[in-house]
């Protein structure tokens, strides 16, 4: 017989693991070809320049090899021909939850999105497979001139801003997966915050994969004009399928002079998702871009959020937590490109490997010769839970010229059996003791998350730890 707590835990663990059958009105079929891209362009009514952009990207995608000379061979298990590249019920997101089709709405209700929106968000976009089902911004925020719409609406309704920055921070051919995204992109957010406007509450996007053998390729572009400030949060889930699912997003941030952008991700992908995401920001003079990135779940995540510090005194920061469960590989890190004097970057990465899980840190810091007074601080700490858990660190720090200050610290630790015994002697079960130790390890970073997300993160860690001790 199951106790209440047991069944509660099982229900919790599968919080994203459910799925309702959906009738898709638009389906690009299986596999990617020029015809697939034409189909996507036609249903989305893309302007001609977007069609050309996609086709060009598709050619680059085909021409580029899989990066298995440095990355894991597991990438070879992605069968691009078996993936469905576009599935939707329609292209126009609804402005009220009442208008959202019932089967999609109950998915988001079950994930708690409308409730969170009421409680603490300035705006929400909820993407279901290829398109946003819902997108809305609180009236007061809209009245300040803030634009928060889907990427398709952004490129149609605000081409003068969109076109100026789209694909400029991350070139199409940056890597094979940014090329794939550029060819097949659909969904994602477009945000523009006018000069001096400080958005007091976070804007949130929720990305939900519902279909099997599906590829989700959202594309997000956020522009904070001079002196503007905005926080964007994204959450992601998918149900568990037998076959692999692909999530390959491109996110570009532009912080103009003195602007601040904070981008927070809490992903909890199911263990069959290949999560291959390119994220980069461009920080102008005195601007600040901060990525707070929390990676739980997925089969393989490869993600190295970056900041190009283009203007003087620009600041870039990456705070990252990765938890590689049994059989999972979290290959994460950061890229900091210093391109002006007196720029400052900070990378703090903490990873936890459980069971046969593997976490990899790759950090690139680049300070060229002609610059002065740049600073970088890198700290990466890995925690190994079991004997077969694995961690690797690949820091690549290039500093040329004089008068820069660079600091790198790395540590690997293990939860020690005496610590667990000590906690058990106080009455905590082995799993609760593990969980407390892991939460302690990431505690200083979790405190940087908004409250609602830190509670969620703690809960996800507890669930992972519950499953990790026999």
């Amino acid at each position, binding site marked *: 017989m199951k106790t*209440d707590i047991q069944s509660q835990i099982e229900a919790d663990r599968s919080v994203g693991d459910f799925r309702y059958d959906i009738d898709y009105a638009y389906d690009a079929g299986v596999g990617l070809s020029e015809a697939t891209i034409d189909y996507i362009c036609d249903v989305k009514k893309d302007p001609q320049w977007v069609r050309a952009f996609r086709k060009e990207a598709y050619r680059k995608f085909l021409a580029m090899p899989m990066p298995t000379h440095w990355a894991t061979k597991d990438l070879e298990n992605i069968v691009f021909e078996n993936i469905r590249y576009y599935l939707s019920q329609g292209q126009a997101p609804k402005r009220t939850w009442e208008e959202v089709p019932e089967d999609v709405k109950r998915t988001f209700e079950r994930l708690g999105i409308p409730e969170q929106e009421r409680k603490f968000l300035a705006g929400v976009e909820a993407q279901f497979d290829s398109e946003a089902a819902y997108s809305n911004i609180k009236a007061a925020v809209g009245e300040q001139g803030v634009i928060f719409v889907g990427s398709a609406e952004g490129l149609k309704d605000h081409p003068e801003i969109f076109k100026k920055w789209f694909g400029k921070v991350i070139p199409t051919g940056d890597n094979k997966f940014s090329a794939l995204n550029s060819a097949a992109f659909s969904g994602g957010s477009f945000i523009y915050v006018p000069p001096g406007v400080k958005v007091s509450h976070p804007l949130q996007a929720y990305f939900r994969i519902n279909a099997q053998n599906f590829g989700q390729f959202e594309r997000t572009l956020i522009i904070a004009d001079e002196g503007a400030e905005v926080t964007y949060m994204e959450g992601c889930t998918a149900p568990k399928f037998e076959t692999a699912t692909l999530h390959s997003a491109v996110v570009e941030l532009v912080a103009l002079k003195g602007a601040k952008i904070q981008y927070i991700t809490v992903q909890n992908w199911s263990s069959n998702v290949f999560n291959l995401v390119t994220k980069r920001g461009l920080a102008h003079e005195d601007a600040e871009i901060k990525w707070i990135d929390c990676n739980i779940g997925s089969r393989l995540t490869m993600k190295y959020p970056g900041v190009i510090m283009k203007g003087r005194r620009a600041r870039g920061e990456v705070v990252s937590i990765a938890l590689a469960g049994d059989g999972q590989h979290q290959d994460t890190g950061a890229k900091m490109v210093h391109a002006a004097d007196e720029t400052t970057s900070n990378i703090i990465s903490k990873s936890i490997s459980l069971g046969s899980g593997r976490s990899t840190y790759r950090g690139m810091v680049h300070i060229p010769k002609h610059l002065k007074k740049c600073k970088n601080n890198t700290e990466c700490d890995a925690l190994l839970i079991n004997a077969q858990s694995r961690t690797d660190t690949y820091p690549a720090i290039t500093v040329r010229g004089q008068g820069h200050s660079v600091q790198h610290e790395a540590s690997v630790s293990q939860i020690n*059996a005496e610590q667990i015994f*000590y*906690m058990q*002697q*106080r*009455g905590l079960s*082995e799993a609760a003791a593990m969980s407390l130790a892991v939460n302690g390890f990431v505690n200083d970073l979790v405190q940087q998350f908004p409250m609602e997300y830190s509670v969620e993160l703690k809960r996800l860690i507890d669930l992972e730890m519950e499953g990790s001790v026999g």
Partner: protein
Amino acid sequence: MSTLSICNLHASIGDKPILRGLTLEIPKGQVHAIMGKNGSGKSTLAKVMAGHPDYTVNSGDVLLDGESILGMEPDQRARLGLFLAFQYPMEIPGVTIANFIRAAVQSRLPQGEELEATDYYAEIYSKMDALSIPRSFTSRSVNEGFSGGEKKRCEILQMAMLQPKYAVLDETDSGLDIDALKIVSSGVNSLRGPEVGMLVITHYQRLLDYIVPDKVHVMAEGQIVLSGEKDLALKLESEGYDWVTAS
């Protein structure tokens, strides 16, 4: 029945036998002391009772109020009312004292019952005041960067909060100067009472000046070789241990 009974206990680490037929009974309401030379097996006894995974029990039993605890996980034993104040308390980075003790108290509540935060803080603050522990202590990570005295006071605070039926204090005096020893001892004394049995393990008589035991036992080569009243400790202090094992 209200006793912690250790019956003919044999335990080893690896192939090395350490406890060789140890028998001892601690009735609730009493404080017993175990003294003995280094290597006599005192700390092993504490760890075996608490269920440390490095030790193997070969025979014998430990009964808590008549119930055998040897088949239980360490946390089950703890929740049943056995507390061990560690000689070397472990550091748990990033976990605050407040959260740690709260999790421990919570683990004793029936399933589905949530500890009320305001009640919890009221209780921990009053116990901290009684132990002369500043309130800022609650937000420090467990034992991280603590002085020897702070670590031991933190152990006694945990004991005060968890209200065990039986408490084993393993070399609680080690690493303490005389002032810290007085504070820790008065904390232990304040927890004495009819509802708790204590076993104080120590190498030196000094501690027993402050925590006056009802009985003193001498341990050698994994056994209790002599038991007596509290003046036995004084005799050991002046004459050493050799006469015990020689006799």
